[in-house]
């Protein structure tokens, strides 16, 4: 069975500082990896996804993530955060393709990023 571990439940940083949100996964098959952001009282917005190819994935809002198969990790990074990045971030995994279409997502418990002035 797949699982996702987000190693930090809360990450406080100062504005313009770099940030890394950590995500490790476990799966017995090839996986596809996603990062979603959730602002208060809203749904989930896709930040970026890894399906294949380059292990460095660039997403929206200046975020990027690196897929490391040997360490089963998919950490999210941003070189300089803004107050508006304050939100909850979820890492998710899917074993896409075994049924020829969309597969379920398995989510981590989330990391709450708080950007302070």
């Amino acid at each position, binding site marked *: 069975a797949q699982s*996702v571990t987000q190693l930090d439940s809360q990450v406080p940083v100062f504005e313009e500082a770099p940030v890394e949100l950590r995500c490790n996964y476990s799966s017995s098959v090839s996986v596809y990896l996603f990062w979603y952001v959730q602002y208060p009282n809203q749904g*989930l917005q896709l930040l970026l996804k890894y399906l294949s190819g380059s292990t460095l994935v660039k997403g929206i809002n200046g975020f990027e993530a690196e897929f490391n198969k040997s360490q089963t990790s998919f950490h999210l990074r941003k070189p300089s955060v803004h107050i508006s990045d304050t939100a909850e971030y979820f890492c998710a995994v899917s074993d896409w393709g075994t049924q020829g*279409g969309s597969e*379920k*997502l398995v989510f981590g418990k989330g990391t709450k990023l708080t950007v302070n002035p």
Partner: protein
Amino acid sequence: DAGVTQSPTHLIKTRGQQVTLRCSPKSGHDTVSWYQQALGQGPQFIFQYYEEEERQRGNFPDRFSGHQFPNYSSELNVNALLLGDSALYLCASGASETYGYTFGSGTRLTVV
């Protein structure tokens, strides 16, 4: 282009009652999945509908049921509500040949 639309946005129900939540997928999407997000937790997969049939199901009791209509919209029904069913219910739509879901803003269900 409208994204995923969910209704209602909020509702309050009494323990033991039944509730129906609705979802209209993004234009061009044919797959609808439902997730339950309890407070402070990540979303948990409930089930997925494709071609009007339940294709996958997560670890949820039979009190949770659903339906997909020919226009790809979907309903989530929960019977015999428990206090523990209080959560944000998220609908996500996707296309069978692409990768990635679009999520709606959710329905906040409170059971009292």
